């Protein structure tokens, strides 16, 4: 599946010479070292790598959750490398959506309310948008269900609805299928592919190599460095993935 030219492609990211170090002295750990990476607007990129290779750190830097120790990070045209934390919150609200492995739904709120809370807290959109968002992820009839009343796949779809509630330019997904079985994982990936087809940039971090088949490009990370970048001339349809 190719990037459709008729839609407005947005997002994108550019990393130059990015280092990220945690701790100091003998406890210093270099999570990323000299990373250069370009993600085109509207592209679907899968970042692959073993545990501890720096995938999540890379995602956090692109999402403005963390700041690089050195280097430049530009996402959706915004240089976020040296922004203060409060400004990064604004950047995230305006440009980035997150999907995590563990859904992170509020257990005491229904699916509807879990999406609503994001709309209200970020001030992007209104409560009236919530039914449409749930419908977009196929959960229009599950709005009044609590997370514990939903399957893992349904919970991840609520998380997706919540992530797109702010209409982000870039959707960053950290092991979005990690807690799901094949069938539900595939459903979530289909949704991500559709969101990408709408023009959003989607970056999926995973250790599941099968997911790479749906990407426009695959970035392989090893020991904090970008090891290899491969272009997929013919990205697979998510519904055809198997693992």
């Amino acid at each position, binding site marked *: 599946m190719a990037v459709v030219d008729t839609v407005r492609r947005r997002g994108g990211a550019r990393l130059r010479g990015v280092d990220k170090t945690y701790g100091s002295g003998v406890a210093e750990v270099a999570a990323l070292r000299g990373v250069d990476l370009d993600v085109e607007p509207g592209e679907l990129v899968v970042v692959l790598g073993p545990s501890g290779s720096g995938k999540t750190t890379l*995602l956090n830097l692109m999402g403005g959750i963390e700041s690089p120790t050195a280097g430049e990070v530009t996402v959706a045209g915004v240089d976020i490398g040296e922004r203060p934390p409060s400004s990064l919150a604004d950047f995230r609200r305006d440009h980035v959506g997150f999907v995590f492995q563990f859904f*992170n739904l509020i257990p005491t709120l229904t699916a509807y309310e879990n999406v609503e809370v*994001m709309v209200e807290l970020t001030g992007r959109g209104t409560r009236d948008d919530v039914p449409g968002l749930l419908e977009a992820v196929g959960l229009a009839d599950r709005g009044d269900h609590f997370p514990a009343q939903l399957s893992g796949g349904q919970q991840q779809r609520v998380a997706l609805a919540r992530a797109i509630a702010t209409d982000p330019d870039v959707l960053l997904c950290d092991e979005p299928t990690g807690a799901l079985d094949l069938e539900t994982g595939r459903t979530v990936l289909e949704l991500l592919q559709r969101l990408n087809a709408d023009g959003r940039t989607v970056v999926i971090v995973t250790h599941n190599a099968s997911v790479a088949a749906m990407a426009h490009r695959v970035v392989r990370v090893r020991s904090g460095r970008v090891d290899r970048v491969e272009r997929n001339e013919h990205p697979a349809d998510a519904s055809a993935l198997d693992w």
Partner: protein
Amino acid sequence: MVGTATPQRTVAERPASSSARPAPRVVPPRALRIKTRRDVRRQLPQFVAVAVTVLLGVALFVASFDAFRNLEASYDTTYTRLHFADLTVTGGDVARFAGEAAGVDGVAATATRTQADLPMQVGTAKPYGRVIGLPPAGQPPVDQVDVVAGTYLDPGRPDGVLLERHAADHFGLGPGATVEVVGADGPRTLTVVGVADSPEYLWPARSRQDILTDPDSFAVVFAPEATARALAGVTGPNQALVELTPAGRAGDALDRLEARARAAGAADVQPRAEQPSNAALHEDINGFAEMSVAFPLLFLTAAAIAAYVLLTRRVLSERPVIGMLRAAGARRGPVVVHYLGHGVLAGLLGAVPGVVVGVVATTWVTRAYTSAVDVPDTVVARHPPARWPASPSACSWGSWAPGRRRWPRRASRPPRRCGGSPPPAAGAPGAGAGR
């Protein structure tokens, strides 16, 4: 397959970017209010425990602090009504001193009298008691007495006396009973015509050195002045009393009077603050004041710690959720306010009934105390709730520390099982959760 078309707003529809931050909210968003309500319901026992601790703290504080102020007011009312002396001068030329003192600025009234400590027989006990002279025709201008049973002294009955209430109660004596006083001319039997309270003996202390007097060894008898002189074996008064005006108390009248008294050869000059009963009561009342702060403080500290533990558990269990909200750009303020709200709620749930209980208990505590000490006047007043907000504040501070944490990075970590619901097994519907 899932879903339909992905909702996509146009650029024009999108709210403006970072330059237009969401307006600061005083009221948390609707969904967070719902969350707070359900969180409280889920942790009801813990919330109730915090609220009850706050309730106890507030009730204790309101009751004891207001009772303390009521006691002060009760004493002051009695002192004012019975013209309690600001200065008691014993020995020397007390008549001359009283005459001079009457002309000093800030002096409201002066009086002289005779006082003597003499052996007595009251009931079956033989205390070394105190005889105090009073004008038989009417109350003296300073250090009056409050007759609570029987009648005041009668000029036609020189052997008729008033027995101070503590002794009367202790020995079970009333009007018509007799006491024997061993005076300068030998034993003399006096008849009790009335029982009286005195501002000098609200706490029956013989002296500053003998505050805790055994009731069997100390009794006070108010006798006609002539009788008191006869018993004491003196021809003139040996004690002068001075009452000051409020302005006199605020100024230096007391210092000037003390100097004059010493110049007049006084053996003992005792300001009101040093008067044994008053000093003892003030020590007691000061202890009460400290207790009225210390005990509630203990409870409110416990409430703050409980709120801290409760909220820390909740915040820790919701770290990934908080991280998710923050990662999505939710500003820190509303998130902090949300968790702070838990503490404020618990504080208010305890503070409001605590105030009610405290106000009711104030009356009870004040009356119980004034009754136990036999304070003639009981003042029960409600005081402005200046310090009551301390209780919700205590919980707020307890909630502040956990509430202010921020963990955007925690969003990618698995949830803890501390209070929150873990995701169910992949693909399997979870157990039902009621609203």
